[in-house]
């Protein structure tokens, strides 16, 4: 037992530094996924047929190919082919973000579709263009409704980010693996890595819960 605790104690600062890398990965990927996901959702709901078909294919692709395949495909394949020289970290953020955008688009699409049709009608009746109506009337409501689903997506991206270790990104999992294979203290190290992920999940979902509460529209029943 003491041996385990010592192993954890020795590795903890190193692992915690890794948790900062994990956080950066997740924040980057979620932010990229948010921006692209909103565009996808708006296009999927309001876009002309060819946009809808195109965006549906995008969603199909990024939801359909395994994360590890996409990471290798982009990092070792595509980026090398095109001659873009980016770090493993950046590549992981981009790939995680693109995949998340596909999932986020469906969360936001659900939010948009759950609004009464009259909201858009009333905005149009006031002389708003569809763009303005979507930005100032539809999205503020749809995004509020999307927070619970988004919180789900956060916890998934957080866990998926561990796979970035396969590209050599020094996040929590990579560091745990690195130390464990040198010291043979597999149990305490992977246990600690797991606990770090659990804590990050808790912190993130808790923060989103607070955000949801803050943005709640007064007068609605819980």
């Amino acid at each position, binding site marked *: 037992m003491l041996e385990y605790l010592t192993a954890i104690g020795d590795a903890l600062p190193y692992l915690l530094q890794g948790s900062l890398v994990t956080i950066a990965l997740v924040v980057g990927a979620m932010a990229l996924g948010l921006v692209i996901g909103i565009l996808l959702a708006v296009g999927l709901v309001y876009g002309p047929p060819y946009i809808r078909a195109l965006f549906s294919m995008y969603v199909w692709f990024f939801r359909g190919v395994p994360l590890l395949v996409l990471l290798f495909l982009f990092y070792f394949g595509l980026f090398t082919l095109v001659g873009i020289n980016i770090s493993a970290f950046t590549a992981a953020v981009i790939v995680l973000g693109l995949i998340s955008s596909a999932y986020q688009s469906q969360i936001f699409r659900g939010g948009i579709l759950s609004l*009464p049709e*009259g*909201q858009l009608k009333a905005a149009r*009746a006031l*002389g708003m263009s569809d763009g303005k109506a979507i930005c*100032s009337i539809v999205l503020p*409501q749809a995004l509020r409704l999307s927070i619970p689903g988004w919180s789900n997506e956060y916890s998934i991206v957080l866990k998926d980010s561990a796979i970035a270790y396969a590209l050599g990104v020094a996040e929590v999992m990579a560091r745990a693996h690195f130390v464990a294979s040198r010291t043979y203290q597999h149990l305490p190290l992977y246990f600690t890595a797991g606990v770090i992920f659990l804590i990050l999940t808790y912190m993130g979902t808790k923060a989103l819960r607070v955000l949801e509460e803050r943005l709640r*529209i007064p*007068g609605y029943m819980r």
Partner: protein
Amino acid sequence: MRAMGEQKEVLKVEKVTKKYASKEVVKEASLAVNEGEIKVLIGPSGGGKSTLLQCINFLVTPDKGRIWLEGKEVLHSQKKNLYEYRQKVGMIFQDFNLFDHLTALGNVEIALLKVRKMTKKDARDRAVAELERVGLRDHIRKYPAQLSGGQKQRVSIARALAMDPKVMLLDEPTSALDPELITEVHAVIKALGAEGMTMVMATHQIGFASHLADEMLFMEDGIIVETGAPAKLLLQAEYARTREFCAKLTGRYGETR
């Protein structure tokens, strides 16, 4: 009847037709509204009143027909022209359609800020004034979910008025309200009429409408069957169907003025 010659025609609708699948919901409906006039559409539910009103500001795109505002034809396929036209046409919906994420004030302000590009202060002053006009001075900070149905409809009227509309379209403004809330909305509409607002209203409140309307239009199966002064339409309608409908309505709904 008012004196004719000096009357300015605000809105003209010519032969508007709307088909859903193979059913013609509105068939060649035409009407003209002069400045300060109030026209009331009556007729059975599903008769096309609501679709006609929504065709007038192109929330529903008509298949055929032309529309003029103050003598200028609305070219609804040109977006800029359409958006400018809609700003001048106030629309009141049966189920209010207030923006649920905004306060009463926010609901009235938003188009002033985003469409009219007014400064924050000007928009706020105007919005407060309009809400005051419909008797909601004490409720400006409330969200739609915190307001009664009658208050919601009054906010939606304030929201439309803030855009200085040339004509207002009211689509059964009190049909979704409890009987005791109808009065407060009727009072606001009546006051608007007294101030000279040009209006086209669909309603089942015959008693109220007959006191307000310059002319009533009976609409059934997508066709404007008969048009005339309220007294004529309600008591001496030409068509048996109009008579039958009016007799039933006055009996069933009674008076709410």
